[in-house]
């Protein structure tokens, strides 16, 4: 149990299927607090499902999941809400609320979930948008933003409640290398400045090796390798070795 409390996230023999398709099979891993875990794998191997299980947008068929010392698989909605407040989720396509301005997207959780005054909320929104380089764009609608800007806006929304655990689903997909590097830099800064635990699903091996402390490689629903880059490079699994390779 002491191990459970030290780790920010624990997956314990988690399985998930959609109809006949087994997406995750008996997956177990732990992520210590303040580390960055990069999840690699071919498409359709359960990486994004892992993130959605972590924030309880999906429920596992079997197994248990702990976040910040709390077992979330059996929580009721009200208790789950308290755990989710400790987490931020950057969706692959940002998933910004498209009928709200950028400011409203960020202010919404602050209005709903905190007792902060309007001035405090304005100040937080300005600060977080400044961190992601969108300070001058807060009155824009999501449809007016480019792909890279949307991604940064999604990251800003994920950070606005200062989460302990940040989940990012392909944060650099569809972005040029410079913008992708900027996103990686923002994730690193979260870890360094606030000790945030970050779990990133990515296909960008270069970026992953730059920011990740640990790596998890999924193949056909199984966790085939887990550990530091050097551990995965020496894995017996060929897919894992290929995926972690920069060449």
């Amino acid at each position, binding site marked *: 149990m002491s191990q459970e409390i030290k780790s920010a996230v624990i997956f314990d023999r988690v399985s998930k299927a959609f109809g006949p398709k087994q997406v995750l099979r008996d997956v177990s891993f732990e992520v210590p607090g303040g580390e960055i875990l990069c999840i690699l794998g071919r498409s359709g191997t359960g990486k994004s499902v892992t993130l959605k299980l972590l*924030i309880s*947008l999906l429920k596992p068929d079997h197994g248990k999941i702990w976040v910040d010392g709390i077992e979330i698989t059996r929580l009721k909605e009200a208790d789950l809400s308290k755990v989710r407040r400790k*987490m931020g989720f950057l*969706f692959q396509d940002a*998933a*910004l609320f*498209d*009928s709200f301005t950028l400011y409203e997207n960020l202010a919404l959780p602050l209005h709903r979930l905190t007792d902060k005054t309007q001035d405090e909320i304005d100040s937080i929104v300005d600060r977080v948008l400044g961190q992601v380089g969108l300070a001058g764009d807060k009155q824009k609608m999501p449809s007016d933003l480019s792909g890279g800007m949307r991604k940064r806006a999604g990251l800003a*929304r994920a950070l606005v409640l200062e989460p302990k655990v940040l989940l990012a689903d392909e944060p650099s997909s569809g972005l040029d290398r410079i913008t992708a590097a900027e996103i990686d830099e923002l994730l690193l800064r979260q870890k360094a400045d606030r000790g945030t635990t970050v779990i990133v699903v990515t296909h960008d091996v270069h970026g992953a090796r730059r920011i990740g402390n640990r790596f998890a490689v999924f193949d056909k629903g199984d966790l085939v390798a887990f550990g530091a880059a050097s551990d995965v490079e020496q894995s017996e699994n060929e897919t894992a070795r290929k995926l972690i390779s920069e060449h």
Partner: protein
Amino acid sequence: MFKPIEFIGKVSVFALRVLHDAFRAPFEGAQISRQLAAVGYESLPLVIASGFALGTVMTLHTRSTLVTFGAGSMIPTVQALAFFVEIGPLVSGLLVAGRVGSGIGAVLANMRATEQIDGIESLSIDAFKLLVVPRVAACVLALPLLTIFMDFSGLLGGFLSEFSSSRISLQLYIDRAFADFDWANFIPPTVKTAVFGFIIGTVSAFFGYTTNEGAKGVGKAATNSVVVSSLLIILADVILIKCIFFAFPDNAL
């Protein structure tokens, strides 16, 4: 394969959740206002134009028959009763089901497909309360108001049609239209459209909110919203008319 019993069960649970969450804080005033503008204000031109055209056409059709039987003076009365008691409420409901129901279904299905609903849930915000309840509330509040506009625009269309034939004055037309009119001819039929609004909002939101078919589900949700809302409105109309006759027996005579 379509399973009607399962569908009825799921929609009923969805509707009960709407009712439960509607009376639970926070009350989403800002969202309801936004939706009222979308459902009510933006539907006004369609409702007024349709009411006016229907009123005109109805007078054109009924005039010859009533005049043949020496009941030409009854034209305004027939027009007012027909619109206030049945045509106004039912046609408003069907028009809003077409315009608003498809919109609600498509918007929510698109939000589901683009993970916006998951995004809201991931922020610990109750997406159902934020997205579904205001839309249903706006439909419930807007429908009776739109019906009143439909009723009076229908009457105006009828007057202009009759004026072009008999040069009747507006004062006389109104006097005749409301001569045998009772509040029971106006209030219950208008209030019943709140039920139509609840049906449109709930059914459309159900199809949009619960879809999991990605982009394909958007079109499907829009179509199903209109078809099922319209059918349920007609069915509810029959039941509600029976209820109104039970509560106001004089209206049934």
